[in-house]
């Protein structure tokens, strides 16, 4: 599987293998934080950044630390620690150097630690056996795909806010249906790029 070029991997993970729409990763925050475009955008940006960097770190840790010592069974816990530690450090740095950015992005950072998408990408990377450069582009592409999906969903949700939706379907119900239709639209891209 080593021969997929990073560029194809980048585009493929945005369109054909979108994190939320075809792998259901990061659903919790995808539904709960998509009421406003502004907040959705902030969270999306944070996800892109954290996902790219942690995927790279996790790749290095996995192949240089876990595999040589035969500690693969600790993968989950090590990945979680790496992600949590990185987010914590990032939060401190942003808080120290850019209070404005912290105001906009800060509240999303703790949310990201438990975002399934971040851990999911790291695990997919291990299962699919990507190299370091591939992993970085895979992380970046998946992050961009997630951002694209959440911003689009937030835009649609803001538009239908005034509509007369059946009462039991309001909130989560209609959101799930919108996501379903978005997933159908993304099926149109299938076959354009080959991911696995």
């Amino acid at each position: 599987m080593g021969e997929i070029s990073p560029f194809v991997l980048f585009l493929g993970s945005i369109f054909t293998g979108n994190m939320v729409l075809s792998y259901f990763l990061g659903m919790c925050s995808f539904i709960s934080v998509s009421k406003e475009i502004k907040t959705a955008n902030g969270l999306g940006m944070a996800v892109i950044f954290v996902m790219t960097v942690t995927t790279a770190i996790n790749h290095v840790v996995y192949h240089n630390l876990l595999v040589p010592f035969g500690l693969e069974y600790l993968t989950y816990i090590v990945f979680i620690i790496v992600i949590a530690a990185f987010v914590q450090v990032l939060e401190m740095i942003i808080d120290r150097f850019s209070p404005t950015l912290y105001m906009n992005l800060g509240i999303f950072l703790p949310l990201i630690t438990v975002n399934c998408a971040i851990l999911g990408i790291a695990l997919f990377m291990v299962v699919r056996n990507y190299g370091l450069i591939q992993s970085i582009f895979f992380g970046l592409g998946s992050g961009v795909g997630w951002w694209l999906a959440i911003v689009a969903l937030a835009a649609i949700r803001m538009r239908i806010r005034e509509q007369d939706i059946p009462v039991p379907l309001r909130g989560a119900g209609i959101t799930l249906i919108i996501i379903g239709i978005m997933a159908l639209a993304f099926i149109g891209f299938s076959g354009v790029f080959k991911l696995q």
Partner: protein
Amino acid sequence: MNEKAGNVFRRTIFFENPVIIQILGICSTLAVTNKLLNTLIMCIGLTLTTALSSLSVSLMRKAIPRKVRMIVEVFVIAFYVIIFDLFLKAYLPEISVALGPYVGLIITNCIVMGRTEAYALANSPTISFLDGLGSGLGYSLILLIVATIREILGFGSLFGFRIFGENFVNWTIMVMPASAFFVLAVILWIFKAMMIKKR
């Protein structure tokens, strides 16, 4: 503070069902709902993890400093998930391959974390265990309904056995990810309509 066991179950499975009321934790399991067997295994894993993590966190609740409680909870949860993962690899290797990375994603499932954080930290071990068990079962109930619908219509089978004749045309959309959203939305719709009527 301590509520009755039957009450806990009624609350967690029906009135505060984690999927229907809180839309929590559907990430890790919705992905495997196109086959009933896979979903069942995932749900068992999730229910056990939630129940046992709640029990452990509740046992340690007086010893955990407030500041590091999150990381302690994650460690406890990861501990049980790793055991479950190793168990699957050893005894059910085929299913382990089919589930792939999704078993590990139980760690970041919001339900497990949510129950330990919101309930187990403040309640006695037995009742926390039941609360975790109930939440897991309530979650499994919905996901198993989704999986049943998707497998019957998408493959014409149940647990891998064909239940329709040769003439049955598979609904291809039911195999695709999009259908999981639609099916879950309809189930949500039905449950919420029933709840509103009851009130």
